[in-house]
Each structure stands twice: as structure tokens, then as C-alpha cells.
């Protein structure tokens, strides 16, 4: 009897230790990125680092403001292009698609999420970049190209989470609206979408998180110039691409500056994640 109890207890504590793995991973990542990056921010000065206009590692100048602007512009562009399409798709899957068709579309959208980001970047480089150069002008490698690629890449996140939140609504809502004589679209627009609001909001926030965090695809189509862009046809650099491009050869203070860029990225992502989780819980 005693032995049996002992055997039961080992797994219990072992499982607790295992369950701490996610928390420890998160803590390790945060601690090590901060340890590496904070000294440089302290040296340059928080204000100069965030709002500095000049990034010239060879001259010891580390200002990431142009990259913050680049990140914001590319992400906003991706949201403007991607979110309406994604919402239509999620309404399609939840409300309009015949069962057979949705059984085909759902795995297809999953597949969209599985395609390596470098493949998207490459595809953008071959199709989107020349199209922008030929029809709209500029170098082609641009904020617009980055936004289009990211818009495609955030589709799966936004579609699947908002679809789930529409499907999770009680059927009574829909039946009630139909009983009042509303058309299907009126029901969707004035009953279902408002009721699924928090889930949809969360899906958009998580989509924004993906756009902010994407690196390789963006490196290939954004042009990577470290200057404040003046139009969406200008090349730009984001926080992620700054790390992705320079990490290969950076050392010393320069490398620390890339970790400091990582801190800014991590903080933005943490705020986005926390607000998405808050939005999901609120319902």
C-alpha cells in the first residue's frame, strides 16, 4: 500500500516539474534577451535608442525609430488588406459554405499557415515586387510589397480564430433573428458579428502579432533601407528584419544593439498577446 502511494506521488511532482517547462522557457527567453540588450539601451539612453533617427553601427549610432515606423506601416498595411478578406472568409466558413466545401477550405487554410515564410517572400519577390515597380513606380521592394505578403500570411490566424468565435455562438441568437424576419446577412451583421466581437478582436490582435513578428518573408520584399520612408512605395526596414539581416555578422556592441531591438519587439508582442488573451476571456 505504501509503495503504491509512493509510486503515485512521484508522477505527481514530476508532472508539476514538466508543467513548469513553458513558464521556464518564457522566463529564460525574457531574461537572456534583456541581459544582452539592456546594457546598450542604458549606454545610448532609452530616449535616443527609441527615437533616434540614425542607425549606423560602425559609428556607434543606434537609433531604431525608422524601424519602428517601418514595422507600424507594414503592419497597418497588412491589416487593411488582410483583415477584410479574412473576416469575409471566416463568415463564409461559418455561415455560407456548404459542408462539403468547408471541409475542403479549412484544410486549405491550414496549409496556408504551414507554407514556409521564405516561400511567401520568394513568391512576393517574383510577382508582387515587379508588379509594383512596373505599375506603381519606385523600386518595387517596398512597404506595399511587405504589406501584401504579410496580409496573406495573417489570413490563417484571423480566419480560424474568428470562425471559431462565430461558430461558438448559441444557435438561439440566429434563430431569434430569423424569426423576426431578418435576412441572413442582416442576422450576420447586426446579431452574429456584434456577439462574436471579442473573439474577432482577439483574432485581429493575434494577426497583428504575426505581422509584427514575421522576419524572413519581409526581408525578401521590403528593400531593407534604414531611412524614414516617405511613401508606401519606398523601401523600409522593420524591427525583425533589422535583427535578421545584421545578426549574421554583428559582434560586440552592434550585437547588443540587435538584442536591444529584440527587447522592443518582445515588449510589443507581449502587450499584443496579453490584450488578445484579455479580449478572449472577456466574453
Amino acid at each position, binding site marked *: 500500500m505504501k509503495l*503504491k502511494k509512493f*509510486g503515485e506521488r512521484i*508522477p505527481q511532482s514530476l508532472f508539476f516539474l*514538466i508543467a513548469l517547462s513553458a513558464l521556464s522557457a518564457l522566463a529564460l527567453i525574457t531574461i537572456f534577451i534583456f541581459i544582452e540588450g539592456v546594457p546598450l539601451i542604458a549606454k545610448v539612453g532609452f530616449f535616443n535608442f527609441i527615437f533616434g533617427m540614425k542607425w549606423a553601427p560602425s559609428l556607434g549610432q543606434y537609433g531604431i525609430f525608422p524601424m519602428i515606423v517601418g514595422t507600424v506601416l507594414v503592419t497597418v498595411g497588412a491589416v487593411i488588406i488582410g483583415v477584410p478578406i479574412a473576416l469575409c472568409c471566416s463568415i463564409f466558413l461559418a455561415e455560407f459554405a456548404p459542408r462539403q466545401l468547408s471541409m475542403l*477550405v479549412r484544410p486549405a487554410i491550414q496549409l496556408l499557415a504551414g507554407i514556409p515564410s*521564405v516561400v511567401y517572400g520568394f*513568391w512576393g519577390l517574383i510577382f508582387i515586387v515587379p508588379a509594383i515597380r512596373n505599375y506603381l513606380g519606385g523600386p518595387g521592394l517596398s512597404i506595399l510589397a511587405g504589406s501584401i505578403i504579410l496580409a496573406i500570411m495573417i489570413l490563417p490566424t484571423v480566419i480560424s480564430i474568428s470562425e471559431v468565435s462565430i461558430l461558438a455562438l448559441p444557435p438561439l441568437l440566429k434563430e431569434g433573428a430569423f424569426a423576426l424576419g431578418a435576412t441572413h*446577412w442582416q442576422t450576420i451583421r447586426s446579431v452574429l458579428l456584434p456577439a462574436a466581437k471579442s473573439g474577432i478582436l482577439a483574432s485581429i490582435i493575434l494577426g497583428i502579432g504575426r505581422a509584427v513578428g514575421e522576419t524572413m518573408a519581409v526581408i525578401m520584399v521590403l528593400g531593407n533601407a534604414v531611412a524614414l520612408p516617405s511613401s508606401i512605395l519606398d523601401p523600409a526596414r522593420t524591427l525583425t528584419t533589422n535583427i535578421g539581416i545584421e545578426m549574421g555578422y554583428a559582434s560586440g556592441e552592434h550585437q547588443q544593439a*540587435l538584442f536591444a531591438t529584440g527587447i522592443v519587439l518582445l515588449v510589443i508582442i507581449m502587450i499584443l498577446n496579453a490584450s488578445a488573451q484579455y479580449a478572449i476571456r472577456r466574453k
Partner: protein
Amino acid sequence: MRLNPRISQKIAKTVIWFAAIVVLVLLFSIIIYILSKGIPNITWQFLTEIPSDMGRSGGILSCIVGTLSVTLVATVVATPLGVGTAFYLTEYTHESIVTKIIRFSAESLAGIPSIVYGLFGFIFFVIYLKLGWSILSGGLTLAMMILPTIIRTSEEAIHTVHPMYREVSFSLGGTKWQTMIKILIPSALPGIATGIILGIGRCVAETAAVILTAGSALQMPVSIFSPARTMAVHFYILARESISLEKAFATAALLIILILIINIGANILVNRFVAKSH
């Protein structure tokens, strides 16, 4: 003036169908384009030779081995941790502040950009633990990345096991441990496997985190301490530095085929699981 409800219904329906069709066309055009350009270049020699001349000629055998070994390390490390966490959350504890913290950590890990994993893996595994650019460093970094996926899918899979199974096992005098090993794991297995397969898919597709931790050496790796270049990294370097478009397409096509197989496998498992639990 308000639009006639019947007309607005028609317009909305058209727009929504149109959006869905655009997404599907986009997806298939990307896949078909890459496959049609790449498959003709996938030859026996391409699959069985190691790259030479920076990847301009030869094949990608060392990159295939790199991808497989990095993915294997990540899966072997992340699976017990992820499945164990899921069992702890569902079977060994009640909802409390502890489970909230664990779930919050997993959700947060899922959102962290891969380039940040790369930075961390580089400073922690490569430099601090002195593992160097290696399959081990790359695999461990990827393990952290896929951990949340495995936790979430396993948790859902365990939740769907009918409570009756547990009760019957307990009523027969089965302990928690026995119930888990003999009842829960077998019933939840397809769901758990789906999570692992999705994790494998992420490992195969990942570039940013691997290039900073496993490196980009072209030689054939000889142990888990060797540096390695995965197929995704190889494709990125070939395409970005315009080394060889032909080899780049072939590599990309091979990646897409691999991802297709992985996704189809996951879907078959999910469907079997859904069929079984109803």
C-alpha cells in the same frame, strides 16, 4: 437611404463568396507555381548529393539530413514536455492561479516571433551553454517554439476523452497513473499525434530561428554537435543571394511537398479522431 434587405443580402453573399475564392486561388497559385517550376529540377542526383559550389550544383542531401535531424531533436524534446504539461493541466490539478500562469506562459510562447527565439537560442545554447552552431542548439530552440502547439492540442485531445472512461478505470481500482497510461493516452493518441505533426511542420518550415542556432554550414553533419543547414535556410540563401534559381525552386518544391504530406497526415488523424469520438 437604406438598402433593400434582399439586395444587401445578395451583395454581401457575393462579396463573401468572392473573398473565399480569392484566398483559395491565391493559395493554389502559389503552390502550383512553386511545384511546376521546382519539380522538373528534382532529380535523383539532387536528392542524393551534397551541395557543391555554394549550392550552384550538386544536390541538397546534407540539407535534408539537417532538416530531419533538427526536427527530430525538437520533437523528441518537446513531446514529453508538452504532453506531460497537458496531463498536468487536465488530470493532476484543479483550475488555479498555477494553471492560469502555465496557460498564460504557453500562449505567450506561441506569440513570440521566431527571430526572437533565434536571438535567444544563439545567446543561450550557442554561446552560454557552449553548444556552438549545431543540430542540438537548433533542435532545442525549435523545441521551445513548438512546445505551446503540443501543449494546446494534447490538452484538447485529453479533454475530449469521455469522462466515463476515467470513472470506469477508477472504479476498477486503477490508479491515476495506470488510468493515464492505459486509458487516457491510447484514447487521446490521435489528437496528441496531430499536435506533434503540426509541430514537425513548423520545424520544417522555420528559417529565422534555425539560421541563428544551427548555422548554415553545407557539409554533411556527423553528430548532433555538428552545424547544419536546413532546407528552408538553404532555400533562403539560394533565393536571397541569387545563387541558383533552379536549385532554389527545386528546394522550395521539396519543402512544399513535405509540408503537404505533413498536413494531409495531420488531417487524416484529426478526421479519424473526430469520427471515433462521436
